[in-house]
């Protein structure tokens, strides 16, 4: 109905002054919660996300246990006040889907076979939402899992590209998400190039898709650096040991 909203100005800049391939400001902090085994706080534009991680601990109830490996359980939740319209407490279908794909992305990198019958529980609380919360949540969750000392092969980094005013851009903001033409959130293992989360909705030609996917993958690599930085400043040690020599990047 409001496709006539202009999202890119004559100067080629977006509503918030960003260039097409520019991320919003991102701030990540590890180890912010006292009771959790691992935790992280992330600000990404106006997104604000807290993540708590518990585990590996015994999976409860017992029928959930997998005798061969740990299960990864993610609960993504938007706080009641995290959105213009109040979010009714309790699970909904959107949150259920995001929890599922986030768990599947993390399962890819966590060494779950070291912990049979265990559960690794990740609680993602979006306390302010500004488009892109699933990417923010997955990015923060990776840091929190690392903060918990849970063995991972790599961290997952997450970011979206999309299309607004017919142009491929990185990291849609709230208005761009509402009035744009496509959104492509991905989760990437930056070190290996493995895509572990991939969703898309909207309208992309094959060429547009390729451009968008590459743009999002590049951004994930940058975000990976921020994640490492957050862990480094938390532990104030060379992070090389933990992330398998990735620190030089």
């Amino acid at each position: 109905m409001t496709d006539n909203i202009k999202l890119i100005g004559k100067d080629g800049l977006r509503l918030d002054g960003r260039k097409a391939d520019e991320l919003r400001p991102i701030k990540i902090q590890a180890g912010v919660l006292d009771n959790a085994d691992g935790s992280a706080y992330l600000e990404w534009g106006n997104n604000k996300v807290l993540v708590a991680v518990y585990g590996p601990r015994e999976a409860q109830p017992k029928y959930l246990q997998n005798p061969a490996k740990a299960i990864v359980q993610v609960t993504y939740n938007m706080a009641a006040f995290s959105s213009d319209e109040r979010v009714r407490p309790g699970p909904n279908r959107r949150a259920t889907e995001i929890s599922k794909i986030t768990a599947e992305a993390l399962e890819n990198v966590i060494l779950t076979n070291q912990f049979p019958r265990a559960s690794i529980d990740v609680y993602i609380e979006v306390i302010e939402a500004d488009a892109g919360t699933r990417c923010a949540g997955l990015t923060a969750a990776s840091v929190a899992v690392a903060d918990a000392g849970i063995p991972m092969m790599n961290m997952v980094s997450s970011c979206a590209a999309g299309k607004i005013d017919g142009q491929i851009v990185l990291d849609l903001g709230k208005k761009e998400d509402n009035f744009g033409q496509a959104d492509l959130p991905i989760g990437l293992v930056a070190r290996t190039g493995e895509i572990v989360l991939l969703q898309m909705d909207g309208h992309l030609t094959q060429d547009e898709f390729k451009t968008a996917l590459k743009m999002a993958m590049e951004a994930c690599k940058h975000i990976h650096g921020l994640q490492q930085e957050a862990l480094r400043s938390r532990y104030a040690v060379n992070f090389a040991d933990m992330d398998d020599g990735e620190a030089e990047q």
Partner: protein
Amino acid sequence: MKRTIIPEIKKEMIYKLAQRDCREDDRSPVESRPLTYEINTIGTAEGSARVKLGKTDVLVGVKLQPGEPYPDKPNQGVLMTGCELKPMAHPGFESGAPSEESIEIARVVDRGIRESKMIDMEKLCIEPGKKIWMVFLDIQVINYDGNMFDAATIASVLALHNAIVPASRFDLGDDFPVPVACWPLTTTFIKLHDLLLVDPTLNEELSADLRFTVSIDDNGDFRAMQKGLKGSLTYDDVIRALDIAQKLTLGMRSRLIKGE
């Protein structure tokens, strides 16, 4: 589905076949199972279709009733898509509230239809800001043998293409066809180690590291994608899958349009 274990030896067999471009049912890796369908078998539905894709058997019914529009879209109809994976379809499914698996199916099917703008929602406005048609798309799985995404999408698209707005029943004028514009279709892959297979059976799904679905419109453009399961895709995997999907949906679409 409750954790259904498939023996390692079975998995290996499926993988070894795939390495030789073969599958349990003699298909090639990029070949879908035989499709049969029936349209408007359910008299009480405004539109319906039953689709069998191999042994996967799904029934979709469309119901419409007047309702209120969303405040931010005062002159548009509303689409509500539901899916239930019930014990009838497979002993691993349980009764009760929709599982996360069934929610994912409903949301991915919904996304393909919604994002392709298949339904002209503005034509489903009765009185702006007050009354619109609500379109309920209910996916009932009858027998589950893998790849609900494609089967449910085909059945949904067929049911919508043959659905009638029951205006007269509500004293809202003459009945008219649900205004639909195109044929969004999906192709679903699994990845076994390094190999991609389309339209997986249940055994193949249970052996898979990853599932990937792409929804494609009449122009061959992409409208929705969804990666599932714990595995990963490379950039090249994705591009290759999209190529295959474009070809397969093109063929499927022309077949469905011809009513074959």
